[in-house]
């Protein structure tokens, strides 16, 4: 079955590593990076990018509005 493919971009320097997007993602795409940003926060990133459907759930719950979401038009998927 054709599954939507998406991807997110997290603005690393704005992310505070609250983990709310990680638990909001229904596909387990995100986790906190082992690296930290300049403020010392473990920022969120796509550790399982193939699973992203571009549903925007992560961005909806982000308090710091640091997530941008992209989704491929479904017709593209083989």
């Amino acid at each position, binding site marked *: 079955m054709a599954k939507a493919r998406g991807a997110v971009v997290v603005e690393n320097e704005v992310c505070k590593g609250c983990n*709310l997007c990680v638990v909001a993602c229904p596909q387990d795409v995100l986790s906190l990076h082992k690296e930290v940003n300049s403020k010392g926060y473990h920022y969120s990133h796509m550790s399982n990018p193939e699973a992203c459907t571009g549903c925007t759930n992560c961005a909806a719950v982000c308090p*710091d509005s640091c*997530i941008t979401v*992209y989704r491929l*038009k479904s017709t593209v998927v083989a």
Partner: protein
Amino acid sequence: MTAIRVEDIIKPENLVYKKSSVLTDVPMHYCYGCSHGVVHKIIAEVIEEMGIQGEVVGIAPVGCSVMAYYYLDIDWMQAAHGRAPAVATGYKRVNPKKYVFAYQGDGDLAAIGTAETMHAVNRGENIVMIFINNAIYGMTGGQMAPTTMVGQVTSTSPYGRDIDLNGYPLKITELIAQLPGAAYVTRQSVHTPGNVRKTKKAIRKAFENSAKNIGTSFIEVVSTCNSGWKIDPVASNKWMEENMFPFYPLGDLKDSTRDDANTYMVQKLKK
């Protein structure tokens, strides 16, 4: 089938969500995971979608959100502690075409500002009131608020809120719903994507109401203050679900019109 690379997806034509243009680029000072940021974002998105950026005025409170004016690129005023509804009243009466909203925490709205809150709604001011109920005074270091739960440990209730000593948690939203001036009263939360979407609908409806001149629209957002509660943001959401939602249930409390309000007092004085 050729593999799709992430770079192929991250292209302008595939964009489905980006930060609202009504939010500034100033990084928010809020603690990680704080509900204030989520509610700011929702308000910004509603303002952007309604195309009213130049017509809206926010009244910032005293509390953690005192500096809300740094984050939403709209006109703001900042009121003394608890007085946002009074300032909103003045602004709206002089500029009736503007969309005016007061944004307040529970210490601000339900403690020091109780009189302003009740009377602004009782007058049916055509304003939007957004009430962040995180059951604690966040800014000043996690003291007990009127909305603090029974048994909840805060810096001023170190053994937990005690009814005999501290009284009961205040359901101010239920009180507000009794007032004839209240057109729309609802209680929402922002801890899941679904709840964020519901809160957005509620805030949009509230802003639309203020253009219809039907009275006050009041939105409580049951929220978390992970620093004050001393639990991490994810666990705070769980604590809120388990402990606050049974006492502060989500949903609409009132959805009425000015006509409903006018039937509230029909008694004519005898000549």
